[in-house]
């Protein structure tokens, strides 16, 4: 007896009980759809966060001053423009593309009609690529502006909105920063709060020298923004930053550092690990529903075998070998779970087309392959017992059953 005939008998058996077959499949459909959907959610969230982190400046490394632990026995040294110059040395730091010293300060910005709280960020032109800042209107400040200490400013989107209203272009106007007049030369593209340490939309970007000359004085730096030459070279760039600053600050032990290095890469690694664990948890929950669906198949196949005992007896009397009966019921349960699995994949995939908030679920091809393989395995595993029971029925007992 050929496999084609066995499949035909199985399909006929399933078709005879269409509604029951469909309801049995529902367990598998829900299980597989849940696995596809939940792993897609985890994957989508991971990709979304990766892209948000890339928005922070994929290759950028931020150095912040830090209070060293008591064991270091020192208060530590601040970050200075001399540190910036040392990091800028292409000999000592070949993987570093640019270095920007940054001074920040909380200020009040006044445009006459309205005023707003903001953070003034004084730096050099390399800060724009280093911090991944995009200019909406106007221009960035130049090295010449920095050298001359010109009081020019670029306003973040929230600052523009607060001072001039939505959609206004303040280029050419003058604002008072803590009473000091700055000429507005540009505005910044809204970042939508890239999930960073502070909201870049509330920043006012000016030349470093202008902030130091009028507001903070020529003292310590608030941070240093370093840009690596490439994404691949970021780890090497971090090492270079650490070794140069350790040498300059006289630090022997990494625990005693008076600065800390934060990179998008580190952030991405931590978030990736967290999300990976989360996705695994979701998939495990979905897998439980798959097992429940599989037990549903066993249950229905047992009912089916009991219900069709007489039919099995007739088939045996007509010369059906045990393998044909086993095959028929096994193939029935495999078809149930495979068709259920296929529908589950389709339903799960359709579910991922619905955007959730800011991110969209992204289907993992490996999850689809695994789901189909698992559903076939469920058919074999959970169908084996009822099918064996049917195959082992003695024809005389099966025929006597009414």
């Amino acid at each position, binding site marked *: 007896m050929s496999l084609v005939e066995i499949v035909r008998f199985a399909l006929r058996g399933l078709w005879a009980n269409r509604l029951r077959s469909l309801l049995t499949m529902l367990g598998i459909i829900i299980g597989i759809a849940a696995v596809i959907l939940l792993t897609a959610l985890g994957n989508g969230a991971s990709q979304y966060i990766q892209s948000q982190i890339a928005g922070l400046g994929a290759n950028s490394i931020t150095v912040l001053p830090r209070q060293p632990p008591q064991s270091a026995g020192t208060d530590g040294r601040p970050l200075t423009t001399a540190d910036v110059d040392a990091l800028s040395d292409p000999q000592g730091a070949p993987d570093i593309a640019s270095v920007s010293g940054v001074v920040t300060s909380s200020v009040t910005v006044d445009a006459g009609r309205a005023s707003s709280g903001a953070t003034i960020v004084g730096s050099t032109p390399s800060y724009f690529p280093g911090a991944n800042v995009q200019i909406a209107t106007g221009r960035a400040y130049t090295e010449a502006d920095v050298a001359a200490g010109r009081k020019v400013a670029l306003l973040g989107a929230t600052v523009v909105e607060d001072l001039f209203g939505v959609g206004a272009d303040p280029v050419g106007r003058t604002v008072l920063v803590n009473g000091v007049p700055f000429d507005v030369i540009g505005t910044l593209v809204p970042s939508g709060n890239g999930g960073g340490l502070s909201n870049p939309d509330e920043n006012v970007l000016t030349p470093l020298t202008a902030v130091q000359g009028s507001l903070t004085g020529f003292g310590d730096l608030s941070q240093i923004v370093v840009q690596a030459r490439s994404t691949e070279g970021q780890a090497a760039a971090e090492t270079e930053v650490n070794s140069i600053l350790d040498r300059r600050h006289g630090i022997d032990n990494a625990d005693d550092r008076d600065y800390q290095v934060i990179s998008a890469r580190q952030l991405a690694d931590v978030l990736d690990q967290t999300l990976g664990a989360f996705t695994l948890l979701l998939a495990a929950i979905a897998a439980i529903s798959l097992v429940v669906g599989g037990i549903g198949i066993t249950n229905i196949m047992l009912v089916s075998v009991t219900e069709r005992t007489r039919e099995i007896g007739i088939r045996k009397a007509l010369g059906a070998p045990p393998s044909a009966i086993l095959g028929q019921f096994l193939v029935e349960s495999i078809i149930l779970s495979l068709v259920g699995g296929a529908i589950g994949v389709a339903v799960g995939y359709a579910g991922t087309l619905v955007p959730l908030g800011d991110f969209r679920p992204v289907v993992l091809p490996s999850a689809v392959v695994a789901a189909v393989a698992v559903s076939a395995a469920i058919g074999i595993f959970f169908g084996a017992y009822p099918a064996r029971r049917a195959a082992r029925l003695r024809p005389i007992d099966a*025929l006597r059953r009414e």
Partner: protein
Amino acid sequence: MTSPDESGPGAGQTLAVEHVIDVRGLSKVYGEGDTAVHALRDVDLTVRRGEYVAVIGQSGSGKSTLLNMLGCLDAPSSGRYLLEGLDVAYLDERQQAVLRNRQIGFIFQAFNLIPRTNALAQVELPLVYAGVGRRVRRERAEAALALVGLSERADHRPNQLSGGQQQRVAVARALVTGPALLLADEPTGNLDSTSTGDVLALFDRLHAAGRTIVLITHDDEVAARAERVVVVTDGRLHEVGVPG
């Protein structure tokens, strides 16, 4: 085209064994100890090729048990059963299935057709298990249905057929593999007199064509159509000889 009875007496058989059935000292005991029921006691029976034998007896006499043994549906407690010279005790489950498929055609009182399956597919079923290809299968099933006069009912399902028609479909199904032996268990028990006449006439024709038939009944009129009658009482078998 291959027809089930084209090949004449002993259709499909090349073995030169005189007795289709050769039973010696067959017993069947259900249960153990004090509660043991002796359904068959030391039964001897031989059936020659082409014979038409009726087994009669009261209900509970053991005649159905005998038929189950002869059909390899149940195993005897003791004794020897040769079917076409082959000792069935040495066959495993799969080999017994092949034996039932090739050598035995069953006809049951309750027809035992597969629900929701049309007549042609019913008749094709034993050939499917025999591994016969689709085209040949169809031809032989159509020929078998033609033989029982149901060609135009080939696409009807059991619930669309009368009792007599269902039993004729069952006869076609029993014949289609060209078995050495037709075993009929009260084939007319659920039929009205007209249908009974049809089915018995069909058996007469099959007998005339050389088929070996063993028929169980409690109806003397049905038994009278056979060429030889044996009686089962309390698990023992007695030859009665040619009736009437």
